[in-house]
């Protein structure tokens, strides 16, 4: 009787914690969260407010979570070019031009060519970010890159 019941009315079971379950392998599975602490220009780029709702910006190697300033740094915001990027040179030069923001596939800007007054302006911006936004990590070069 039990066999017939199981044949006619099979009971579907699931194991959502099994590492080899269908759901784990599914393309719909959520991406693994990034460990806060170390970002490369490539992993930082994702947090531009568009690909991911969070907005992370790097200033002098420190990565800040600027999601609270979405009206400034989010898509369509006046400083949206900084979102998901190292904004150090742009802030130092007081320029929002994309030419002053390095793309994710370029090496990290060493900022050695900044003038003293530009470095001073950048320090001011760094202080401002520290006061206003939480720190979520450091910007490090891509493994293998110089």
């Amino acid at each position: 009787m039990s066999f017939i019941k199981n044949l006619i009315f099979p009971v579907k079971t699931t194991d959502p914690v099994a590492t080899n379950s269908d759901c784990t392998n599914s393309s719909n599975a959520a991406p693994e969260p990034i460990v806060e602490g170390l970002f490369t220009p490539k992993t930082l780029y994702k947090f531009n407010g568009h690909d991911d709702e969070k907005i992370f910006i790097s200033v002098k190697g420190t990565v800040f979570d600027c999601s609270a300033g979405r009206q400034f740094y989010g898509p369509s915001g006046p400083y949206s070019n900084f979102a998901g990027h190292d904004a150090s040179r742009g802030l130092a030069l007081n320029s929002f031009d994309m030419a002053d923001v390095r793309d994710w596939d370029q090496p990290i800007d060493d900022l050695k060519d900044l003038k003293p007054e530009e470095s001073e302006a950048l320090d001011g911006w760094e202080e401002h970010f520290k006061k206003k936004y939480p720190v979520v990590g450091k910007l490090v070069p891509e493994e293998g890159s110089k």
Partner: protein
Amino acid sequence: MSFICSIFSVLLHYVVLPFVALYILLIIYHEYLSSQRDIQDLALLNQSNIAATRKSNETAIYRNNQTPHGLPLVTGLAVRDGFKLRDGNLRDWWSVLIAQEKKKESPESDRVIVEDSKTGTMLLSMSQIQTLSSQLSSYFKGKEYTVIGSVLPLFSYHSLLLSLACFSTNGLTYHHFIDFPRTQPEEVDVMVCYKSQLTFVQRLKYKLIIVIDSESTSSGIVSWDQIISEPTPTAFEHTHDPKETLSYPFRQTTSLNATHSYTHQNFVSSCASMVKSLPMAHELTSNDTIMITQGNDLTQWGKFMAALIVGGKVILGDSDDKEVIDSWIEKYQPSIISVNEKYVTNTVNSYDQEESKKSGVAASFNSLILSRAIHMFSEGIFTSSAQQSSLFNSLRLTYITHHIATNDPASNLTSSDLTKYRAITSSRAIQTTSLPPSTGGLLSHIFQTNYYDYRILSTDKLRNLGTVTLTLELKLRAVPGLDIEQDKAGEVCIRGFVVGTPYGEKALGVARKDGEEVGGEGWCPLRGVRGRFGIDGCFYEG
């Protein structure tokens, strides 16, 4: 040649065509099941909103899908104040109840029913509750008492009135003790007790002792009836004061002597979370009657408040006995019940015993109907075809209270048991998981399962506790023996708007230190509460 043709014809008619017909029928049946599902598998596999980043040795922060990252958690009643919305407080909640009552042409005489073992069944209308609680609060205010204590069961008749008197009056705090205090409690001016408890109460010093079931009075002792017989004070008036939201109208000391204070915001966010947690078309309405059977469980406040604010009725009792609860269900025909796991286990066992006594065609038929219902549930389809008793005709939802990290044998409720319970009662079931009452500290449950989640797990070793409630966010931290990186397993840390404040500088200092261990910023580790997150965003115990 004709012989081969005839064989081919026979094969076509008796093998291939039936096989193709069966295959088509299976496809149609599969499509039919898919169209009947309450929720799609994809939704069940994404039940939490998970932060994009995490700290090392921790999981990412998990939230309920209804309060995703980037949006605020549920913080209160969203009371309109000009162009702004504010969280509100217990006096706002009280104002809504009174305003609702005034609008009714014939107010119900039984908005709140208390099944009290001492006083019997008490039927209360909102105006009665308002009058009685006003009499209590004006007496306490008149005598300048500010903290009122009691050891009565939390949702007993007298304790309920004391709570509501303190909730509706600025400057009063109700201090509830689960066990008798052994040392002099700080700041408690008044202690309310039964005559039989008087000897214990008199061992400590209070400004006033109120005895419920005695009319005699002496120095420092008055009877309950004496206070209630005072003239009725003026009607309730409420003007909003932002400072009230963070004041403490309630305090509780657990059996482990841990004391926590709870703000107005703790209460209103718990209430709002309860109202908002049910899916569309199944929300709480004024037609709902909620029966709460855990009369001493702090986390039931949210259900009590939510039922009243939507205009529904509440039945309060304190029992885990199946026969008692069944008799209340028969008497009041509630649409929603809140019970502990023991009731569910006993209901399923009782059904199995009854069925095992039966024999013949009727027993086989019942067994087949139940198997079909379980099959439908496992496919995500709710069915009431296997309901066995008319007792559950009005029941639409059961909240099952589970206390985490307890070794109670009744808490071994498996997903198969739950499915069977759904089938035989024809009721949806939401499991709510909270801290044990002896721990305290939270005014709401931590986890709750999805309304539509009928999945049956392939192992009974794990238990699906669901996702975090709408007022909390949660992360796990690494502990020895559990793998945080691969398994997402660790110890639970929470933060949110239903977390109570430890009472006293020493306890507060310990809590602060504990919080700093897990990153500060309001995080609170729940020691010993361990488990893992599944790929579906649900938390699993075991």
